[in-house]
């Protein structure tokens, strides 16, 4: 308690420089202090502030990949990054990437929208009403362990190959993530906040809108991010087996044709879309619920 907050925060980094081979938790701070010392140099401020570490990491990854690819000399198993890049440009020029990506993203958006419409209201009902929860929860707990993927054969029979199957699988996956988070969000509302609203004569619908909903929002947003991640993972499996187009289909299609550079190019597309969407959702989360951290906990 005797050190000021700023001093105790700084303590970590300074200690690391003085104390080589210290605790496991200290080695990293050394790197940070090195950066701090380097920044007030001759470079313009905005340039010094950009963190080039990710670029360097990816550059090293590409170099290692190139090296391994040349060394294994098996272009079908591991094409070089250059050939993957060329394949990517080809596919992009022919519009094939946009075509498949658009199909997958549309399915994703539709699925998430359906899942929100189904899961969030049900989550509020179950979170607010113990009786409804007691009836519905066992069914949810029975179905939840059966992964969306395991529905594929049955769904293939019911829906055939097409748009409906991937959407069904994704809705199923997203539904549970959203539902469980909504329920726990609604239940996490501090009863005192509701009691306080009541003593002020606020009516029940107003309490729902102005107390319960905002309090549950962080958990719902976290649930939505989880739902997105689950759905984006499931879409590949669903399209790979049960769709005539989309990114999952494209990967498998070119795998069968042994056109590895295109397989890798499409995997790259999946990674980039997934990454960008996650960044977008994080930004949305900060806008919607600025008072909590990324895991949804108030800090």
């Amino acid at each position, binding site marked *: *308690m*005797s*050190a*000021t907050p*700023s*001093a105790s*925060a*700084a*303590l970590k*980094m*300074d*200690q690391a420089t*003085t*104390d080589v081979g210290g605790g496991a938790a200290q080695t990293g701070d050394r790197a*940070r*202090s090195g950066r*701090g*010392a380097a*920044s*007030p140099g001759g470079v313009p401020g905005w340039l010094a502030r950009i963190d080039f570490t990710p670029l360097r990491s990816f550059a090293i990854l590409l170099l290692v990949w190139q090296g391994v690819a040349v060394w294994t000399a098996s272009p079908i198993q591991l094409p070089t990054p250059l050939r993957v890049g060329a394949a990517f440009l080809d596919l992009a020029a022919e519009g094939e990437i946009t075509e498949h990506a658009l199909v997958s993203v549309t399915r994703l958006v539709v699925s998430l929208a359906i899942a929100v419409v189904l899961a969030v209201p049900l989550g509020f009902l179950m979170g607010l009403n113990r009786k409804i929860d007691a009836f519905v929860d066992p069914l949810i707990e029975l179905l939840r362990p059966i992964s969306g993927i395991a529905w594929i054969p049955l769904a293939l029979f019911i829906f055939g190959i097409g748009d409906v199957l991937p959407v069904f699988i994704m809705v199923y996956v997203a539904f549970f993530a959203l539902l469980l988070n909504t329920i726990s969000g609604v239940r996490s509302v501090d009863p005192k906040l509701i009691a306080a609203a009541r003593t002020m004569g606020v009516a029940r619908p107003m309490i729902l809108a102005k107390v319960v909903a905002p309090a549950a929002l962080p958990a719902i947003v976290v649930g939505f991010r989880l739902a997105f991640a689950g759905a984006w993972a499931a879409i590949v499996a669903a399209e790979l087996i049960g769709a005539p187009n989309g990114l999952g289909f494209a990967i498998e299609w070119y795998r069968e044709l042994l056109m590895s550079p295109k397989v890798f190019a499409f995997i790259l597309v999946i990674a980039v879309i997934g990454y960008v969407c996650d960044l977008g959702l994080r930004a949305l989360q900060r806008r919607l619920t600025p008072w909590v951290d990324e895991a949804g906990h108030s800090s």
Partner: protein
Amino acid sequence: MNGAVNRPKLRLQGVTKAFVAPRTGHRTLALADVSLDIDQGEFVCIVGPSGCGKSTILNIVAGLDAPTAGIVEKDGAPIAGPGPDRGVMFQDYALYPWQTVQGNIGFGLNYGAPGKSMSQAERDARVAEFVKLVSLTGSESKYPHQLSGGMRQRVALARLLANGPDILLLDEPLGALDAQTRIILQAELLRIWGETAPREQRKTTVFITHDIEEAVFLADRVVVMSSHPGRVRDILTIDLPRPRDESIRADPRFGHFADEIWRLIRDQALQAIA
């Protein structure tokens, strides 16, 4: 042992500690030119307002932190890093939640340097001895979360002593306890420290507190610090007789010392809340 007569056990000379903030490069001076000699068997309390660098001094003596400038010596040799010869009792105790009372007391003996030359049976015997010393017999297999604050404090004290350090460094060890428990444990601490033993056999102790009466009750000398940057404001020799018990608080000199210390830190304490 001839040299030991006039050589202090611990010597801090011109110790300065600056912290540099990671991004802004802003420099904060936590300690400025702190000099302090502590003799063998002395009980020294450091008091001062928050921000005076009390804990920084402790960390530097413990070897967890190095001074930016100045000399820190133990028995005439510079302190280079942490070692089991200087035992630390941390604020909030730093007990291992996954270890039982026994496991915590024996942590250094079993996994660290102090128990290197011992057999497992010797270690166990030593743990049992210190369990008894701090009156925790019967609670050996409990986990920290099952203990009261006072009991946790005793575990931390037993762990500290079991490692056999010759210097004890205590960072507000009673700070988390309620007022009644504190007063009881202060007397207990003096008993365990070895108040009745001759000075050569007592452990040299540096004790950090923000409680003025606690400092007067425990210490041979009280170091009063001022903040921003942390400096030694004054050092008071508390020549109250030992062994001390509750009655000493009624001694007029006790109140005099407490008033004197309060006078020294009052201005900054008032500033801090203004």
